[in-house]
């Protein structure tokens, strides 16, 4: 069963705290993505990873960094979270430019 998982599903942090969002996939997909979704803005690409330790900035990388040490895991890190990083974060994976499979999302609230 093809699956993308995200942990945690809900998270509340205070401004200035560090945030770690985890994503896993069991399809051996090379490419993985982190997006955020905000009302009226659709899905905005934060980072894309083409394989282990092969990461590229997306359209809105500022304030974020990523880590991919294993093909099946892709982490999004917020060092010193800001209130404008309150959002829903989606991870996705794909085989080249084929269908992107999305995780269930993480709702992050930064107070």
């Amino acid at each position, binding site marked *: 069963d093809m699956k993308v998982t995200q942990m945690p599903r809900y998270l509340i942090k205070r401004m200035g705290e560090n945030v770690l969002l985890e994503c896993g996939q069991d399809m051996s997909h090379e490419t993985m993505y982190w997006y955020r979704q905000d009302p009226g803005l659709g899905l905005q690409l934060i980072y*894309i990873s083409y394989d282990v330790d092969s990461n590229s900035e997306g359209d809105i990388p500022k304030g974020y960094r990523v880590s991919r040490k294993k093909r099946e895991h892709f982490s999004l890190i917020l060092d010193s979270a800001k209130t404008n990083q309150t959002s829903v974060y989606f991870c996705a994976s794909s085989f080249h*430019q084929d269908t992107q499979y999305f995780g269930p999302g993480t709702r992050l609230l930064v107070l």
Partner: protein
Amino acid sequence: GQQVKQSSPSLTVQEGGISILNCDYENDMFDYFAWYKKYPDNSPTLLISVRSNVDKREDGRLTVFLNKSGKHFSLHITASQPEDTAVYLCAAGAQGGSAKLIFGEGTKLTVSS
């Protein structure tokens, strides 16, 4: 600027009618076009996609029309049903490029019974 744009944030259609969702794009290099469906508090899932070598693709009640000269593609849903009520996201990308998809802002479709 917004490379992929859905100009209608919302659309309401009667049950049994045809829902038409529209998407415009700017980049001539885009050659992959897709529609994703998203229910509230759920993840987007791929509905249908098409490559630029065709101008139409049908799958059941769904049809994607691609107008390359107009940089426009649309999703038609025939015999619309209440369970079609969701947010529809269009996306476009360039094959052989970075595997990035650019998503539109989404159109909330409501099918009323």
